[in-house]
């Protein structure tokens, strides 16, 4: 960045982003009259807002300063405080990137809704408010504004989840989502309340200054962890996520999974790392364990899904788990005094935030593209889409490789960093931690491998092989706008994998601002070499890897196809039927389905889920296979609460017995009772 730009301008840009988001809300009020407004004005404005946020974030990260101001809104004695620092900048950047892609993608996508009878105004308006909420959460500098923005985010996204509200399942999902969001919000509010009770007020600067006794600090941490964890979909508070994310329109799912969950991460970081400030290592262990649980459970659940968007939602649980593993490591290192290692884990977590935003956004947009052209979410109906939607197929492949943490894509870098952080556990004093962290890294490794399985399944079943249903066979390449949106994200996935040094150079501003120390080593040997700790310890060179992969690959290809076979009888490829060991020509029905693909894993890890699998013989003699995969946590956590409330309500309503004499009796009893009490 040139010295000319200042933090003020960054803040102004952020403000511009908010204004643009609100503007997109306003213009979509016209969509009732002119449906095209949504396509032509509202969604592009959203994209522009994203662009502005992106720019603001970049500047803030590059300058690494902080700037704050207050707005003439809010409580008389607590105006809205707004602050832009490196942390906020990073998440602005994150929000901005995905929103840009959505801005490219959505115009073509929402066109499909213009003929439906769902209100376009609602879609556009609440999308704008949703973005506004997320931006304001990141910018907020006092608990009140934070809560307002937070709940605005929840509420508007709830309306978007309930957008297709004919299906009772969607309504149920929306209800569950709003309920849990509300509970989570209340917990966060309570957490801030605890801080404020020991501080002087609700602005973050005052909360930072608060001196908490350990007990209450623990309470605040627990509340915040539960509240933000509920939003981030950490196990066991994840139940809403796989319900709610899939049913929203796909570009909104991309925003929810890609961005909103990160906003929850932001909240957690702001609350724990920034506001509370110092912490015992036990917190780190708790976060680490929950992160591991979420990662493992999320990926296994994803692996067993056949509904594409649901699968992606579960995989979000898994990725948030990985992020929280990073944060947990960072907490452990920081609390034991290893600042630079803490910073390393912290950066790894942030990097993964960014990566997940990119590839999960990409994958949801891809799923949307499939939905758009086939109206199909069930993997077992898909197949052969790569030849029907080549560009979507290509970009989706990039997403798959990135999320499976394969070099040279971005997912790999963040996982690599996390491993590097975990491998420094030998430096710790406490043997418990030294033996705990390796286990965490084992879980991380297992998770990574299972993710690969999951997405090989997805890609292989959806895009390869032959179409399993008629409407999928008729799929067409989508409009260019949708492909541009995906292409943008796919490109970024590659770039962030190839040039990690630059990215870390940017992110580094955050730990420097929050933790007071960054990773000076990371880019010490130039942009070509990533050496987070020291070159002897570990080094990775994305550019060279790509160079060599491409170089060798092309050389071999050229060599075999042109050099080698020069003058040989056959140079070209002959097309023929599939051999398939000489069995009858394979029909699409003979392919492995997603269910079949996951069957071995289901056998190995089945205990973790409520699986009921039935094989019934129809009267026409055909076998019918039913498989239902339930989430054990329902029975363990959610149903009991619901039942308790129900029975309590049943008992309580007996108050309203209908007999006026009984009512009078109550009055008399109350009166006598009170008189008794007071004397």
């Amino acid at each position, binding site marked *: 960045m040139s010295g000319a730009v200042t933090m003020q301008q960054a803040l102004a840009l952020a403000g511009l982003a908010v204004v643009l988001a609100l503007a997109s809300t306003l213009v979509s009020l016209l969509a009732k009259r002119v449906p095209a407004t949504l396509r032509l004005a509202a969604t592009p404005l959203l994209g522009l807002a994203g662009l502005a946020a992106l720019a603001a974030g970049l500047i803030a990260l590059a300058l690494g300063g902080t700037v704050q101001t207050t707005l003439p809104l809010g409580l008389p004695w607590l105006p809205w405080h707004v602050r832009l620092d490196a942390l906020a900048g990073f998440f602005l950047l994150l929000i901005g990137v995905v929103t840009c892609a959505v801005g490219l993608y959505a115009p073509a996508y929402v066109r499909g809704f213009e003929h439906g009878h769902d209100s376009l105004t609602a879609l556009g308006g609440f999308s704008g408010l949703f973005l506004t909420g997320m931006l304001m959460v990141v910018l907020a500098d006092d608990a009140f504004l934070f809560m307002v923005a937070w709940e605005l985010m929840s509420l508007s996204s709830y309306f978007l989840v309930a957008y297709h509200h004919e299906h009772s399942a969607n309504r149920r999902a929306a209800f569950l989502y709003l309920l849990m969001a509300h509970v989570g919000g209340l917990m966060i509010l309570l957490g801030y309340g605890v801080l404020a009770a020991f501080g002087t007020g609700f602005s973050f600067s005052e909360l930072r200054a608060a001196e908490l006794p350990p007990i209450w600090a623990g309470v605040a941490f627990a509340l915040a962890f539960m509240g933000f964890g509920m939003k981030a979909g950490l196990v066991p508070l994840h139940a809403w996520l796989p319900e709610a994310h899939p049913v929203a329109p796909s570009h909104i799912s991309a925003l929810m999974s890609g961005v909103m969950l990160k906003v929850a991460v932001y909240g957690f970081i702001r609350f724990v790392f920034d506001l509370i400030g110092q912490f015992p290592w036990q917190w780190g262990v708790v976060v680490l364990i929950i992160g591991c649980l979420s990662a493992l459970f999320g990926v296994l659940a994803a692996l067993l899904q056949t509904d594409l968007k649901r699968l992606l939602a579960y995989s979000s649980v898994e990725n948030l788990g990985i992020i929280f593993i990073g944060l947990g490591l960072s907490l452990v290192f920081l609390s034991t005094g290893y600042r630079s290692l803490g910073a390393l884990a912290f950066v790894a977590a942030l990097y993964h935030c960014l990566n997940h935003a990119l590839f999960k956004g990409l994958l949801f947009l891809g799923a949307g593209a499939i939905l758009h052209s086939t109206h199909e979410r069930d993997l077992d109906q898909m197949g052969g889409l790569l030849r029907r939607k080549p560009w979507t197929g290509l970009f989706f492949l990039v997403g798959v490789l990135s999320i499976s943490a394969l070099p040279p894509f971005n997912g790999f870098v963040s996982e690599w960093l996390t491993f590097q952080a975990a491998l420094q556990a030998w430096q710790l004093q406490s043997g418990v931690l030294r033996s705990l962290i*390796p286990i965490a890294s084992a879980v991380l490794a297992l998770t990574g491998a299972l993710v690969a*399985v999951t997405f090989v399944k997805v890609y292989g079943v959806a895009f*390869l092989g032959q179409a399993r249903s008629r409407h999928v066979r008729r799929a067409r390449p989508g409009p260019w706008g949708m492909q541009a949106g995906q292409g943008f994200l796919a490109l970024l996935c590659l770039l962030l994998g190839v040039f990690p040094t630059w990215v870390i150079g940017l992110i580094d501003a955050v730990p420097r601002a929050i933790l007071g120390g960054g990773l000076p080593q990371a880019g010490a040997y130039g942009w070509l070499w990533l050496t987070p700790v020291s070159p002897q310890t570990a080094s990775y060179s994305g550019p060279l890897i790509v160079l060599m992969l491409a170089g060798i690959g092309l050389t071999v290809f050229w060599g075999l196809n042109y050099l080698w076979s020069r003058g040989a009888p056959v140079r070209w490829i002959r097309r023929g039927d599939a051999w398939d060991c000489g*069995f009858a020509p394979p029909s699409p029905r003979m392919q*492995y389905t997603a269910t079949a693909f996951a069957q071995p894993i289901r056998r190995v890890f089945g205990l973790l889920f409520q699986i009921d699998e039935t094989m019934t013989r129809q009267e026409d003699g055909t076998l019918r296979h039913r498989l239902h995969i339930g989430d054990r946590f329902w029975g363990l956590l959610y149903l009991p609460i619901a039942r308790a409330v129900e029975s309590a309500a049943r008992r309580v309503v007996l108050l309203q017995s209908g007999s006026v004499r009984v009512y009078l009796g109550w009055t008399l009893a109350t009166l006598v009772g009170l008189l008794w009490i007071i004397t």
Partner: protein
Amino acid sequence: MDNYLTLPGWVLAVFQSCLYIALAPLLVGWVRKVKARLQNRRGAPLFQAYRDLYKLLAKEARVAHTASPLFRAAPYIVFTATWMAAATVPLLVVDLPTAAIADIIVLVGLLALARVFLALAGMDVGTAFGGMGASREMLIGALAEPAMLMAVFTLAMTAHSTNLSSVIDYHLVDGFVLRPSYLFALGGLILVAVAESGRIPIDNPTTHLELTMIHEAMLLEYSGRHLALMEWSAQIKLLLYGTLIANVFFPWGIGRGFGAAALGLGLAAVLAKLAALGAVLAVGETVLAKMRLFRAPEFLNLALLLSLLGLLSHVILEVGA
């Protein structure tokens, strides 16, 4: 960093990489030969594997109608990725740039990349067996990869580095030390190697009985040069694991300077070690029988357990505090 990036270093790196693809068939041939001998057969000549490759490369490639471009791209990607992974493992000499470019985690990543494309290629044509093979391969990979990572992490934590060449350096420097953790790690790594390179008891490279095969099932639709590349990369993989075990756990003899003598010694040493390992593998494959697919997880869980024990015994017994 600078000590890696020297011109001779680059030259040697290229040479060593080429050596990998050159030696890979030889190892396979050697294993087959030993096996045949153990089974009282004369067996195919030692260089049969080269002949097979040559034959396949000369044949025309047949591709199913239903195959997508990915099907044709996959062999090259798999081959390249495996080769690159191999290139990062010091074969003759340490301190090569390749080791700096990609550390041991990247190595695992590259192998995973290869596996993913292998599996995708298997599912591409849309036959029943392809999907089956892919599913099984991914299951085994999913269980083997963490085990492998844990095993190498034991080394990495001992050497405080994930850079293979500095790991080996470290061992050469502090000489022969008997570490309980290495015992476990070695065991785990061997099991993983067996599983990953598709040998008995997990998979049978020579079977063509559809329902039992894993690796072969994904290659059913391949022919000609594509098949050649796939086979070749499988052989490279085997060599890679062999070298890894040989040079990391028994680093002695590997060259530490770029002098001709060091290189010669290194070559001799590694050949000897690999020959021994190949023999061991052959013996193992002769005495063991292939196990059912659903016993494979138990096998790999054992591997994971061993590696994890290695890691724990390292942090508990060896670092101490």
